[in-house]
């Protein structure tokens, strides 16, 4: 390299540019002062190539060469590629013959003398044997430390690996420096002290054929009805401020009246009495007989008392409506509910038979539920959750039958005070069932 360098420095561009006036002298007397022979080095002919082999020289020493001529064929890591020259001159020296294998990129393989030079006098630069790809340090310009030449290991860690180092809190002194070549790439061995390597056995593949994968669950798509129910429940629970109060109502008298009525072939259920009682209570406490208009933020007290009865079907609850429940007697209610419930189970309810309503009763007593609380069915503002009848002792140690009833109400439209009044009224009617069997009790 130094030979070549000296030649170059011997005639720098400055020198040449200043010598314009004496060009004729320059040209004639020392035409090739600056002209070191052209060095042919093993080229990198693909991005991944680090070494190559000379398959065959296509020119002999002493042959004239012109730009575009192929001097030799080179086997790269991928293919045999022609080595072209872009210069004019004479092939002066072949330093590595045909069939030279595994020559490092940058290794000098031949020399080309420039036109006008005697190719026979061309001498091999001294450093020819070694690769000359390292940049020379200029004497005039003080060399700044190159970024990649820094000895600090932390500065040589690539971004991906540095990320890992940060994530795992690895001390860089743990990094196997032998694995660095030349930068610590992500793939370089990083010893992470905190995490033990997985055991060999765990990694080992099982032999034999692969069993077919059987998932231990079953995917079930939501039915449209369940989707609608979910949507309405979410709307209700997330927008209506629910409040809950629970009361135990005595139903012994109802049970007695019902037994008598059944004897008279009047088949009514306790639920029919409750429905009637609720309807009358709503008439007396009209705050709960309201519908909320979410759009306007207003609620309206309704003139009629239409009680929705929750009916379980295969797909979920549906709430057919007993219209004017306050005006008809228990037998009519019973008749209505039977028809509606049957229609509901058969899926034959007309929209007007389940849409609207001013209040809902959900009774899970027949399913053995003691007590529960229900979610308001908008635009209604109240729902009564009815549990099963339970035998209890009162303070006088007398047996009595109680039903736990929980009212969920919309705190926006109804105060606790009115809700309490409603529950007391309900309790009163249930305790006086003779008022319920009249078509229109005289209140």
């Amino acid at each position, binding site marked *: 390299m130094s030979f070549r360098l000296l030649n*170059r420095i011997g005639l720098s561009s400055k020198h*040449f540019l200043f010598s314009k006036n004496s060009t004729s002298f320059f*040209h004639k007397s020392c035409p090739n002062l600056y002209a070191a022979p052209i060095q042919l080095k093993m080229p990198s002919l693909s991005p991944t190539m680090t070494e190559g082999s000379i398959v065959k020289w296509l020119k002999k020493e002493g042959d004239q060469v012109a730009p575009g001529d192929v001097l030799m064929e080179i086997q790269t890591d991928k293919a045999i590629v022609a080595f072209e020259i872009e*210069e004019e001159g004479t092939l002066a020296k072949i330093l590595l013959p045909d069939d030279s294998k595994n020559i490092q990129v940058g290794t000098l393989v031949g020399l080309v003398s420039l036109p006008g030079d005697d190719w026979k006098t061309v001498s091999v630069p001294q450093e020819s044997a070694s690769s000359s790809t390292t940049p*020379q340090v*200029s004497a005039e*310009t003080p060399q*700044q430390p190159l970024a990649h030449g820094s000895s600090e290991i932390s500065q040589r860690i690539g971004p991906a690996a*540095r*990320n890992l180092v940060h994530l795992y809190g690895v001390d860089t002194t743990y990094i196997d420096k032998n694995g660095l070549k030349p930068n610590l790439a992500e793939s370089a061995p990083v010893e992470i002290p905190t995490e033990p390597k997985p055991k060999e056995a765990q990694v080992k593949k099982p032999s034999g054929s692969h069993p077919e994968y059987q998932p231990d669950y079953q995917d079930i798509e939501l039915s449209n009805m369940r989707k609608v129910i979910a949507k309405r429940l979410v709307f209700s629970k997330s927008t209506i401020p629910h409040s809950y109060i629970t009361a135990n109502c005595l139903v012994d008298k109802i049970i007695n009246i019902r037994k008598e009525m059944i004897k008279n072939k009047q088949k009514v259920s306790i639920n029919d009495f409750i429905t009637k009682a609720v309807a009358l209570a709503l008439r007396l406490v009209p705050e709960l007989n309201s519908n909320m208009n979410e759009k306007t933020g207003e609620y309206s007290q309704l003139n009629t008392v239409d009680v929705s009865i929750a009916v379980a079907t295969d797909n979920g609850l549906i709430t057919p409506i007993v219209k004017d429940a306050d005006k008809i007697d228990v037998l009519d209610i019973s008749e209505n509910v039977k028809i509606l419930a049957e229609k509901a189970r058969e899926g034959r309810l007309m929209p007007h038979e389940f849409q609207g309503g001013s209040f809902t009763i959900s009774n899970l007593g027949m399913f053995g539920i003691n007590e529960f609380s229900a979610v308001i069915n908008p635009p209604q503002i109240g729902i009564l959750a009815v549990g099963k009848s339970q035998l209890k002792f009162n303070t006088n140690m007398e047996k009595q039958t109680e039903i736990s009833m929980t009212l969920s109400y919309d705190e926006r439209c109804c105060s606790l005070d009115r809700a309490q009044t409603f529950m007391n009224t309900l309790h009163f009617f249930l305790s006086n069932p003779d008022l319920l069997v009249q078509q229109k009790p005289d209140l």
Partner: protein
Amino acid sequence: MNKSLKNLILNSDKFGQLLAIRPLSVSAKQNTTISYTIDKSYDLHRLEQGPSLEVSCNKEEALDFYRKMQYIRRLETTSGNLYKDKQIRGFCHLYSGQEAVCVGMKAALDQNDSVITAYRAHGWTYIMGVSLLGVLAELTGRRTGCAKGKGGSMHMYTKNFYGGNGIVGAQIPLGAGIALKHKYMNEPNVCVALYGDGAANQGQVFEAYNMAKLWNLPVIFVCENNGYAMGTSVNRGSASADFYTRGDFVPGMRVDGMDVLGVREATRFARDFALTNGPILLEMVTYRYSGHSMSDPGTSYRNREEVQEVRQKRDPITTFSKRITEAGLVTPEELKEIDNGVRAEMQEVERRALTDPELDVQELYNDVYYQPEPGFKVRGCDNFTYEVSK
């Protein structure tokens, strides 16, 4: 050129005299100027009259053109060698064979005219005013590079030279935009937007034609047709290889891109035309000796004989040197002297491009945003590194 002035010259006795006495081929009588009729007449599209077929230059110009073409050729040879020596990494697209286009065009442009090209940009970068070291050190990633070594082959810029664009064809609408700026600012300048025969098939090219014609922008679209897109010959990749006609409503002209004086004459004409009439399209028929990029040996879709034939018969440098020496304008010694000077200077440039310091890593955070606030930080390669940007 002013129209009345043009008429004056055309009608003058002296001009008529010149026409009458000038031989059709090379005039060898004078040794201060050279005049000749170009080999191939210009093919015209929607132009009633093209540029003069007579071209001429004086000795000073001839030496200048020769020297510049040699500089570019040697710059590209050096670039190719350094790439094969792994000193230049990444992208590298060589201009060897096309030198006459940029040298001839630049000679006809005003210094305030703008140029934008694609990534085969080394020659244009040099001719637009970046030093040889600025180009080569940029390629080797040194701080003396024209973009401080940050950009490499695809990102070279200087005043009135808008790069070096890595996106195929994207420079063409940009060039139309630069022409719009000239027009908007009432500047007497044009923008030259260059692209290859491969990019000529891009949709955005036709959008740029449309807007340029609609607004009569002073833009010269230049298709440098070097015969091959990336691995595909013109006839395999283009339904019409008459690139000068493909602007449809944009007038066009086919020019022998290997003849530096013909290129200059055509560019003069196109420049005058664009300033008064709006866009014009020049197809420069030229050739590239190397592959599309350094990853392309350039011999899988054409044979070596074809390349060698072009080198011998159409090479822009050797045909021009032959012409000017045979005409007695210059002596072979003068050209030899230039060759040696170019070689020596390039060796010095190469040495510096290999030894000049690289940029500090810290510098990578700078020049990301235009005039950032003091203390503004830019994220590094990972989520944990933030550095102040200047």
